[in-house]
């Protein structure tokens, strides 16, 4: 039994740590955006476009870290467009998000056409076991713990955001704009300005998620790179009740769920592969059904958020 169970668990763990990273960044980006009172469904487009930009940046400069920077800048730019559009009168944030989802993926497929074949420099993996001075007898666990170097960045970011929302002037301003636009105005701040800044910053964070899709194992750019991870991340924020720290747990859980199919395949069970690929979507739905209540605002949700009403 253990000769099947162990590889399976190792594959799940490795998958959670690998697949969870993009989830983590996009949900943190969405968390920041929603805290300011807007929902950005366009992060799916941001994720795909920045994944392409990261790969292209790394391919052209030869440095994967330049790719990461390009991805963050691209994500910020597309999200900035969302922020600006939503600041116009009578423009709805949900509809704009859908539009940017289409625009982002369209641009990514168009500009990324020449990038499908080539190889780009990849981010070097972090060997967690080696760093902790520990060793595992199992080669499987050893390879599962070769994690994406952006993972610690994401974890630090989650803690930093948690601290910022509670303790800093900027974090409190974002929450103020998200909870009461009129109070923000009364204190003499620009609601739109805060929201545009939060949306753009959220896009930059989601862009890091894109970089972690194409610049780390398996590390290639193709048109099927993301199928709704950006959107699942939006739902994750509801599940995480708008707390950056809970986003970490939610992202790892979903990474693990997404890894079930490949993990089963790795131990020789390949029938039903397509169904297992749907597990994250179904899990998201189930979690939404459990955590939402009709006619009741979700616990912890920003007061100005249209989706939570």
């Amino acid at each position, binding site marked *: 039994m253990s000769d099947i169970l162990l590889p399976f668990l190792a594959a799940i763990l490795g998958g959670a740590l690998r697949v969870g990273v993009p989830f983590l960044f996009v949900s943190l980006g969405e968390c920041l955006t929603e805290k300011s009172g807007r929902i950005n469904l366009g992060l799916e487009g941001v994720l795909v476009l920045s994944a392409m930009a990261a790969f292209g940046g790394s391919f052209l400069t030869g440095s994967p870290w330049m790719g990461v920077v390009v991805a963050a800048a691209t994500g910020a730019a597309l999200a900035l467009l969302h922020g600006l559009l939503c600041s116009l009168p*009578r423009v709805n944030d*949900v509809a704009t998000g*859908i*539009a940017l989802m289409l*625009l982002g993926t369209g641009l990514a497929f168009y500009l990324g056409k020449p990038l499908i074949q080539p190889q780009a420099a990849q981010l070097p993996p972090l060997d967690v076991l080696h760093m902790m001075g520990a060793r595992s007898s199992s080669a499987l666990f050893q390879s599962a713990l070769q994690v994406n170097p952006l993972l610690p960045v994401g974890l630090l970011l989650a803690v930093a955001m948690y601290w910022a929302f509670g303790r800093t002037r900027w974090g409190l301003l974002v929450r103020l704009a998200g909870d009461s636009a009129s109070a923000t105005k009364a204190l003499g701040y620009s609601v739109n300005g805060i929201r545009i800044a939060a949306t753009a910053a959220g896009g930059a964070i989601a862009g890091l998620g894109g970089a972690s899709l194409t610049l780390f194992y398996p590390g290639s750019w193709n048109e099927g790179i993301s199928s709704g991870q950006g959107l699942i991340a*939006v*739902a994750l924020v509801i599940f995480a009740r708008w707390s950056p720290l809970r986003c970490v747990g939610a992202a790892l859980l979903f990474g693990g769920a997404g890894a079930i199919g490949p993990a089963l395949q790795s131990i020789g069970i390949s029938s039903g592969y397509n*169904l297992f690929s749907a597990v994250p979507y179904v899990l998201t739905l189930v979690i939404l*059904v459990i955590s939402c209540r009709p006619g009741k605002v979700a616990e912890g949700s920003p007061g100005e958020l249209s989706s939570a009403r």
Partner: protein
Amino acid sequence: MGRPGAGPRFAEVTMHKNVVDALLPIGALIGALLLFGLFVWLGGVSPVETWALLFKGAFGDWFSWQNTLTRAAPLMLTALCVALPARAGLVIIGGEGALVLGGLAAAAVPYLMPLPGNIVGTFIVCVAGFAIGGAWIALAGALRQYRGVNETISSLLLAYTAIAIFKQLVEGPMRDPATLNKPSTRALAETIQIGGIFGSDVHWGFVIGVVACLALGVWLALTARGFSVRVVGGNPRTAQLVGLPASGLILLACALGGGCAGLAGAIEVAAVHTNANASLIAGYGYAGILVSFIARHSPVAIIPVAILFGGFGAAGSLLQRRLGLPDASVQVLQGIAFVLILASEALRGVDWKAAGERFRRSMQPKEVPLNSTVKPT
């Protein structure tokens, strides 16, 4: 739609409003074409040639027209999947899932029961598609009404789930062993396939789409049930006060819309692919979102918009062949158009006369207030 009690200017105001309503999307589309031209020009492709090919590939000759109308058929039906729930106040974007399952259901019927080899068989196949598509989108509506789950997110999650189910069944139990490279289901009998209109390449699905748009437009505008749906979507509070059964009406709108998208899938299978395979997942569900938004969720306005975007889709392969543009160029055009259409909403209801007056006044030199306390230095 004008304000009651607006007095003698009522007719004039409504006129003006209707003209602006029609001009804004057209202006946004022209802007999108200009921006798209700029975009391809940055990549070293002549924008004039791109525009010319775009219209040649869409509406240049009878061959292009047939291609355009064939693509417009599913677009009209998937756009209805966005428009009807939108009129009831819901933003549903998972039409792709309903379409895919509708196609799957159409292909599955012959596995389950013998079909009469005539139009009755075709009808049964289409009803199967309609039913499953309607149920799938009604599920998103029910989750929102009874559990408070955001329908935009849930409908898209359901779409991805539907695609997974589709692939599982087509590559597994429903696979025709004769299809080696491209897993497909067994083909529908030729007698129940949907053929071309009077010998052309445009299949009868186009007529079904037009009729569905017109019928649902009339339903929304003229029937009590349709009016109730619009009240629920326009002002839920009023609907509650009047005592309309909001949940039932919302579910009805979702089921009808989802049914249309499912029907689109069934028609694609019965008229274009003859069996269910991965080609069915062609993005018509997502393009339908754009079509519905440009048509401002009006079923009748969907018809010309779907033909226009069916045309752009048809021209895509021409752009690819002649100019070497990537196949995603049409998607870029759609994305730009969508963004501009939404942005143009900001111009709606702007009082141009007052804005012009303000502009003129701001151009004039500022008068110094008489009792100014600011001393010139």
